[in-house]
């Protein structure tokens, strides 16, 4: 395998943009990434586009990538659509990495785009993809994460206040991110007193949906030197699927454990060497769980870990300096690549008011999707990506 670098990133602001088109959003992110990399559009040899839901909403199951790039004047090259639930964008990034690492291509693009305002329903939790029976029986993603929270509180003594601190921290970070959808700080009391969605999750415990796009340009280490003096190395890009063994515990996403262990091994480092992480905080208990499963703290201590301040900017391992999904929103296909963009800005020292000083190693983590199973199953897809300055 060859060493692969990220030489350019782009990202639209995330928010509700019903007046724009997904192609318009995608084009904006791709153009920014190309300009950041100083690579002409014609140099891109292949592209991988993550999108999870919008295709169907626009009566188009396939081909958002072709359509976005067509707008941009990129056509004729191999373009794949990558649908992998909440990890669609990060899986597209991993496919892009693999295509360069394998030696097949020298310079490729990973992009992700989503426009969830295209769905008709407003003010209700986004239903999960392809779990018709569970949905008919009243399931939605927050019902799963609320049960994680209940069991975590039962087994480990985690408190509602500790869960709320995830939203407080991430909203505070977002005040420094002009591309985040919600940039207003909130207090623990405001989180706890917000309208109850699924106990113990209130409105402020849940990430909003949204529209947006993000893109990254990847190339071989040899080629990177032609375009930039500061390439960011992809030290690991790992994808796992959920396992469905019996009587698994809901308080661990084993896919995250397996993906992160492999990523640390491939990158030749451990969690203690990370300077910054962007993790999948779709709901507040998720971030607590991810601390533990990524090895940032021991199992069961995630609540105390956030309360210690370790994951704030300025702490030992700042998590979600971008504001996370809770502040940015979660345009599914774009989310994973937006995390990559944030890490690249952090590792280049370009993150402005939310900069983690001296960040050299960053981790991005996505986890999502549900199996249509009445036996307790893991989330369907997990990615862990490690970048180094």
């Amino acid at each position, binding site marked *: 395998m060859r060493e692969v670098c990220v030489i350019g990133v782009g990202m639209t602001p995330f928010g509700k943009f019903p007046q724009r088109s997904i192609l318009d959003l995608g084009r904006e992110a791709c153009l920014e990434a190309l300009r950041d990399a100083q690579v002409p559009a014609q140099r891109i040899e292949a592209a991988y586009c993550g999108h999870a839901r919008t295709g169907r909403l626009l009566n188009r199951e396939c081909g958002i990538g072709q359509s976005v790039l067509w707008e941009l004047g990129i056509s004729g090259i191999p373009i794949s659509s990558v649908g992998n639930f909440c990890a669609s964008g990060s899986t597209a990034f991993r496919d892009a990495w693999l295509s360069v690492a394998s030696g097949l291509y020298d310079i490729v693009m990973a992009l992700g785009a989503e426009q969830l305002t295209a769905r008709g329903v407003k003010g*209700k*939790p986004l*239903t999960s993809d392809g779990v018709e*029976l*569970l*949905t*008919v*029986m*009243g*399931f*939605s993603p927050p*019902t799963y994460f*609320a*049960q*994680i929270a*209940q*069991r975590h509180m*039962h087994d480990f003594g985690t408190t509602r206040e500790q869960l709320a601190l995830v939203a407080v921290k991430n909203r505070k970070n977002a005040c420094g991110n002009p591309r985040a959808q919600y940039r207003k700080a909130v207090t623990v009391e405001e989180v706890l007193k917000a*309208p*109850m*969605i*699924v*106990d113990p999750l209130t409105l402020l415990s849940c990430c909003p949906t949204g529209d947006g796009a993000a893109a990254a340009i990847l190339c071989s280490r040899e080629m990177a030197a032609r375009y930039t003096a500061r390439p960011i190395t992809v030290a690991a890009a790992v994808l796992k699927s959920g396992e*469905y063994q*019996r*009587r*698994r515990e*809901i308080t661990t996403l084993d896919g995250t454990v397996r993906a992160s262990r492999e990523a640390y091994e491939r990158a030749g480092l451990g969690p203690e060497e990370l300077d910054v992480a962007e993790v999948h905080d779709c709901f507040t208990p998720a971030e607590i769980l991810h601390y533990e499963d990524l090895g940032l703290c021991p199992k069961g201590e995630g609540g105390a870990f956030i309360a210690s301040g370790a994951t704030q900017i300025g702490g030992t391992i700042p998590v979600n300096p971008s504001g996370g999904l809770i502040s940015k929103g979660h345009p599914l296909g774009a989310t994973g690549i937006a995390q990559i963009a944030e890490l690249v800005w952090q590792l280049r020292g370009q993150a402005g008011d939310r900069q983690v000083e001296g960040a050299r190693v960053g981790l991005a983590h996505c986890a999502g999707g549900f199996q249509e*199973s*009445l*036996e*307790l199953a893991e989330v369907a897809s997990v990615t862990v990506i490690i970048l180094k300055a």
Partner: protein
Amino acid sequence: MLVHLAPVREGLFHLPTTPEERPYLIGGKCRSCGRTFFPKRRFCSSCQAEGTIEEVPLSTQGVLYSFCVIHTPPEGFEAPYALGYVDLPEEDLRIFAPLAADDLGQLKIGMEMELVIEKLCQDEAGNPLVCYKFRAKE
């Protein structure tokens, strides 16, 4: 009697047709490896044997593993309602289940639960749909 009502999905549970009958969940057990599945599967994903799954009634007694109470309901549901995962120790299963209790506030992890068939929600035409639930015994 609930027998005139539509189940949320065919094949998940047995609806009693007489007052003497009890409801039960319809599981599948692999003759080859002994793994029990809910719902019943056509193929044993545990040992990959073919044609070995037999229909079995599952135990009607369980233990609450985790739960949640939903306050913002999707279409067809009335809030608050509860969902959870219930352990069936006899079959070594941890299954998804709508929950029932006289007061949803009494739900607690570890409590004993019992299978019932009750109205769950209504379809788009407003007709009630029944489903299995686990009801708090305490």
